[in-house]
């Protein structure tokens, strides 16, 4: 092998070494930064049942948002004095829904999505029904729990 060839070989080897170490360097800088930006998973407190309040806290034909773990749940006392509990997070774009008395429906103000009282998406853009929760009455108290 001539001197020229061996110099060329050495040069291309060094180029290869340099470029791979630049990639390695970038990866070793970027990986911790990207991992840092990804928020740590927080252990959600597993809630199976919460006290929504007393029967007298709920007016007839009205709805109230309660805290179920860290999710909002809407509890509705219907005209016929039935209690219903559904997830209050609109399946469309995450807004919090409300009970619309005049329509007797659950309504999302953000994009005019409507659900009936069984949680079924009946009009507007929501793609899926609302999740239904269980209601338990114990004396005067109303408990909301996840359906098994």
């Amino acid at each position, binding site marked *: 092998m001539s001197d020229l060839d061996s110099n060329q070989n050495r040069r291309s080897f060094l180029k290869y070494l340099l470029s791979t170490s630049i990639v390695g360097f970038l990866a070793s800088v970027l990986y911790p930064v990207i991992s840092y930006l990804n928020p740590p998973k927080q252990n959600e407190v597993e809630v199976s049942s919460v006290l929504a309040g007393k029967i007298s806290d709920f007016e007839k034909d009205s709805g109230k948002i309660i805290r179920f773990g860290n999710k909002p749940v809407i509890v509705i006392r219907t005209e016929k004095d039935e209690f219903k509990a559904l997830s209050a997070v609109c399946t469309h774009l995450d807004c919090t829904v409300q009970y619309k008395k005049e329509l007797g429906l659950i309504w999302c103000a953000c*994009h005019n999505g409507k659900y009936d009282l069984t949680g079924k998406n009946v009009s507007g853009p929501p793609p899926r029904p609302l999740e239904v929760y269980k209601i338990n009455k114990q004396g005067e108290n109303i408990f909301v729990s996840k359906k098994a």
Partner: protein
Amino acid sequence: MKKIVKSFYDYLDERLHLEDLVHFMGKKYVPVHAHSIWYYFGGVSLFFFIVQVTTGILLLFYYKAGPDLAFESIQYIMSKVQFGWLIRSIHGWAANLFILSAVIHMFSVYFEKAYRKPRELTWISGMLMLFLGMGFGFSGYLLPWNELSFFATKVGSDIAGAVPIVGESMKILMRGGPDVTGATLSRLFGFHVALFPGIFTVVLGIHLLLIQRQGISEPMHFEHLEQKEKKTMPFFPNFLLRDLLLWLVMLNLLAILAVFFPAELGHKADAFGSAPAGIKPEWYFLFMFQSLKYLPAHIIFIEGEVLGILLFGAAFALWLIVPFWDRKSARGEKNRLITYLGIFAIMFIIVLTILGWVA
């Protein structure tokens, strides 16, 4: 006085060779033609950006990020701090006027086809700044931590979450967790006051450097004119003085708007409250927001929302790379298709914005 200025200039000139710079500036010309008025909007956008940096720094002296502090600190700025209401109102109005003048600037460049070779990179850097401007708007919107901004951020980040494959991680990255919480506020605050201004300043530097290097774009019909038939105006001082006069007019406009229509604060955000009726994003997102409203829940097998986001994404991407697919303009030929597409885009934006406004 003149003597002092002269000796200061000589001092700098000796060290920095200012002669070259003065010579360069003396040779800069701005083309004069029927559409010369549109040349001013880039400068006007720059003016509003300077106002935003200044008022933003002033607001930072009192603003506190955090779900328990943000709303209260703005209440404090609005009611207790001297001229706090004015600074915040100017910041709010200048943000809107910045987007408006940048959009006018963008469309004027588009219709003049000034993005054509050799100015492709100037167009790309300008579009990046427009997107960053919208990012500023979106991130700044949450900072008062009121009902409206809370739900607008929920909707906005959920839209990002609907993008196939990368959406969910983008949403988590934006929100700092699965929901909009204090973590989101910290993040968007960081984006708004550090990350975006940093990137924006670099891109702005490149944009201005390219304009200095390439000169101001001439309209297409200038290419067929003799050198002496082209009407021009010296940049320094003629164009610059006109620019500055317009900046002064804009400053007055800002003051009038901020005094007579001050920024509102609304009610503090409540993560466990229902979304208020009449919730709307900033006007420059309204046409997209309104279009998404009209899409049914499902179109064939794809969610309406996802399809809408993909279509808007594709439209923005095509718009961004227009210098690379508009080959006709690059060759100096008229391209009517581009003009019609632009008119369609403007009509679409105006009609849907009005519909969103009155809805």
